[in-house]
């Protein structure tokens, strides 16, 4: 409450003992709100929670990044060891891995990368099926809960903290009395609401900045990460988005507050809105996507694979078996060449089916994501993922790059095999290709390009626009309702 000192004009100043000279009404109101919040335990608890969770999250991530990097390096080293002193003939049955590098911005926006598949192993031989795996072979049980990234904090903690700070902005007996007092001065309602918004927002933004600085310190110090310019731009982008999100959350709380009389009811409503927005809508979206875009069962896929095999083999040739290399040489590997073409066709058709299944799974995921945009909290999550290039976009570009890598590998192996005049050149079957020793460095390596900031901005433009629209609607709603709020 402000101190009231009577003045000659008969009107008491709002705050302090001096007439507000050169300070706008908004600034005075803001100062008042900030002082009130600074003394409020809600602010203290929020600050503590935000800073400690961001610090803890950074520690956890630094440890995780180090171990992921070790696993990544070990996977590449294992591959190098396999290719040491090899021949083209042996190399066709080696499972060449396309390994997704550890996601450096996972502390910022993990987007499910922690448990997404991150290695695609493919052989060139039609006898060997490709594998898509997660964690470079980690145990299936270690697929744990979500990551403690900044977005988790924004989604779960900052939203609830914003609601806790803003739920009684307008409603409640005590508030109404204070507002009646404030409005006896030449102060517009929108100015009061703006001051409350900025004050609550500052209460969240300040610990967020402190937490962010602490995070980055831990990551560069303990974690040993060195961020590139592009990465710093993206970090800045997500920080900006987070600040915007906090303002939206406070506005939502103020909107609800301007809608009810009782402050307990206001917080209860906000808590339930939170549960719907954070838990229920995504769960329901997942289930809906599951129902609207069902995926074939493993059995069904196996059946289709067997059908392809049967169809191709019966159409092209009858039964037969591959002879030894020395015996088959007599007729220049006639049967083997025929069978190789058949098996390669069979493999190509089965691979097309496998890729179609993966595409379908990606589209199911994307549908679930689109459905959950109903929740502003998940709209922000999706916008952030697109901005930095995480989430399903990263999965999709990894798969496409892995598939393209397979083609590059096949091309290079064909060239290496062609150099050996003694090779039967039955592509790509072990026992019928060049047995000359080949240097491991002759095989191409998989490389993965992360999305650039410009691409990220373009991909998230629609979501950011939608967010802007939602913010405008909530702001208008809050101003409208507060404008008509009965303070009696």
């Amino acid at each position, binding site marked *: 409450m402000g101190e009231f000192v009577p003045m000659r004009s008969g009107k008491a100043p709002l705050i302090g003992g001096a007439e507000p000279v050169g300070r706008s009404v908004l600034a005075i109101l803001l100062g008042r709100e900030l002082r009130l919040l600074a003394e409020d335990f809600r602010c203290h608890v929020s600050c503590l929670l935000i800073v400690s969770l961001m610090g803890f999250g950074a520690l956890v991530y630094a440890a995780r990044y180090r171990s992921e990097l070790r696993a990544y390096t070990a996977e590449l080293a294992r591959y190098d060891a396999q290719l040491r002193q090899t021949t083209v003939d042996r190399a066709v049955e080696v499972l060449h891995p396309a390994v997704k590098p550890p996601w450096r911005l996972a502390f910022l926006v993990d987007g499910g990368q922690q448990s997404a598949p991150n290695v695609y192993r493919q052989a060139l031989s039609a006898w060997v099926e490709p594998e898509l795996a997660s964690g470079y072979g980690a145990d299936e049980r270690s697929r744990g809960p*979500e990551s403690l990234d900044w977005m988790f904090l924004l989604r779960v903690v900052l939203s609830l903290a914003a609601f806790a700070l803003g739920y009684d902005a307008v409603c409640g007996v005590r508030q109404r009395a204070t507002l009646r007092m404030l409005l006896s001065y030449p102060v517009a309602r929108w100015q009061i609401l703006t001051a409350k918004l900025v004050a609550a927002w500052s209460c969240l933004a300040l610990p967020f900045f402190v937490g962010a600085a602490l995070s980055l310190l831990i990551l560069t110090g303990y974690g040993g990460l060195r961020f590139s310019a592009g990465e710093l731009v993206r970090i800045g982008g997500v920080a900006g988005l987070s600040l915007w999100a906090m303002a939206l959350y406070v506005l939502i709380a103020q909107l609800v507050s301007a809608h009810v009389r009782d402050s307990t009811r206001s917080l209860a409503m906000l808590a339930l809105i939170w*549960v719907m927005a954070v838990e229920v809508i995504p769960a329901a979206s997942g289930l809906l996507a*599951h129902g609207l875009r069902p995926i074939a069962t493993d*059995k069904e896929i196996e059946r289709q694979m067997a059908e392809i095999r049967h169809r191709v083999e019966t159409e092209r040739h009858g039964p037969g078996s591959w002879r030894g290399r*020395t015996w088959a040489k007599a007729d220049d590997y006639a049967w083997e060449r025929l069978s190789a073409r058949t098996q390669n066709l069979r493999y190509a058709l089965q691979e097309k089916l496998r890729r179609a299944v993966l595409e379908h799974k990606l589209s199911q995921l994307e549908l679930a994501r689109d459905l959950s945009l109903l929740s502003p909290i998940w709209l922000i999550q999706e916008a952030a993922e697109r901005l930095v290039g995480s989430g399903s976009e990263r*999965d999709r570009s990894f798969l496409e790059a892995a598939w393209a890598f397979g083609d590059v590998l096949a091309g290079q192996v064909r060239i290496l095999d062609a150099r050996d005049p003694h090779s039967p050149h039955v592509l790509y079957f072990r026992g019928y290709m060049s047995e000359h020793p080949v240097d491991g460095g002759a095989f191409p390596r998989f490389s993965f390009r992360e999305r650039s900031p410009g691409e990220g901005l373009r991909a998230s433009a629609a979501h950011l626009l939608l967010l802007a629209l939602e913010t405008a609607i909530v702001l208008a709603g809050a101003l409208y309702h507060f404008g008509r709020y009965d303070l009696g």
Partner: protein
Amino acid sequence: MFRAVVKKELLNHLVSFRFIVSTLIMVILAALATLIATADYNLRLRNYQSQVEEHRQDLEKIHVYSFLQPVLVRPPEPLSILDQGNDARLGNEVRIHIFAIPTTATGGFRGNELMTSFRGLDLTTIVRVVLGLLALLLSFDAVVGERENRTLQLIFSNSISRFSALAGKYLGALAALFVPLLMSFLLSLAILLWRGQVELNPSEGLRLAGIFGSYLAYLGLMVLLGLVISLFARSAPTALVVSLFAWLAIVFLIPQAATAMTRDVAGAEHAQGSTEDREAEIVRERERLLAAEAERHPLLATTSGHSSPIVETTRNKAVLRRYGSAAFYDALAAYHRQETAAGMRYAEKIFGIHQSGEADLRAEARLAAVFSYPSPAFLLDRLSESFAGTSFDDYDRFLTTCRSYRLRLIDYLRAQGAFDSWRWFTDDPTPTHPWPSLFGLGPDEVDESNVESLFGRLHEPGIAAKLQQDRMRFEQDPSRLLPIDDLPRFHHRGPSFPQAARRVAGAAAAMLALNLLLAIVAVVRFHRYSLDVAG
């Protein structure tokens, strides 16, 4: 008087806005979640039944013992409708054979591995999140709110002890929570029985009671927490905000942080790659041993008129040969005797390596659990999953049953003389018809000079057609099919109630201990509580 207090509290809650809205949300969500989970269960059950039938039919078509690799399938757990746990996520098929001891299950309808961030919604999650919140919303102002309204003193205008008054508030809130809990539980059960292809047996009935009991214990704990907050808070709004943050910490933050800490900070060093490398090294050693063994037999080392071509081969060294001579088959039987013995020995070694890697993972999981014990939500999850039969322990139990089935299979094969006879690799009866007989020659009439060309002639259209006809005839010949009527049967069912309870005795004890602790704190605090608002 005590009953009047309870009744008054209950009625107050029942008409409050927060109660009505939460109950509505609770019931709608429970119905939706259970409907979807039931449809999913039905689909998994159909898949399971078709898998079992398919594997049964496959077994009826085999000719030799090396192909006898029964596939065991884990049935979907009916109570997973209430608590999904890991039931749908983990594999459900295990192939049993000599050369490896099962350590993991594959297959099953596991849905979309890319949708990891879209957790399903089940009754346990809804109770944990929504009813947990409601419990706090009903009790946070039980004491401090009434003190602010100056109605707290009125309770004691009749001679009622402080303990009775507090107990009355606790029971009133719990009774109110019982309404949405019972409604959603019974509704879920009704949907499960009506829409699901489920027939509950007494053991499952007991486990259902266990799940319901876990829900009650959790809600009782949350009500006590709300009461304690109410007793220590200066004002009702303060109590409300503290309750909200407490709910956030309990339901979301503590379990997350504990797992992240142990998985990423303390434990992430499972040397998965090195376990695989060691296993691969053991396999290479086994193959070298077997290759050396094959070289020792002159008939096996080179192709001759006695050799038997491989008609079919498949995973795990299953092989079907025909058109060999008796001498060749005798040598092959001796080789396969060594192969199967070595296979079993090396399977034990590989399993040992795998288990030591597993031990590290389990230690990590236990550590994460210990850090999460302060969270009632985590304890609820543990209890509920165990009674529903969808925890990792249940998956392990299935694998253990598979491993003991493998031992029974080995005993069965030994009793049938499978490891010592020709029937491991061929269904040819005596006298045999070695492949040179297709050209009118005896096996000894084929030597180094003509073996290659003769063998190549097996692809000639006339010969190939005859071979194909033979093959089709052999497929239909009942005397060539392997008799497996007395093959050991496999049964697997959900855990019994005592089994499920024993597994989570620790979590149950922790839940009860937390309940007791909070109750004591509340009673002690209320004893010295000022009934008047502080000046």
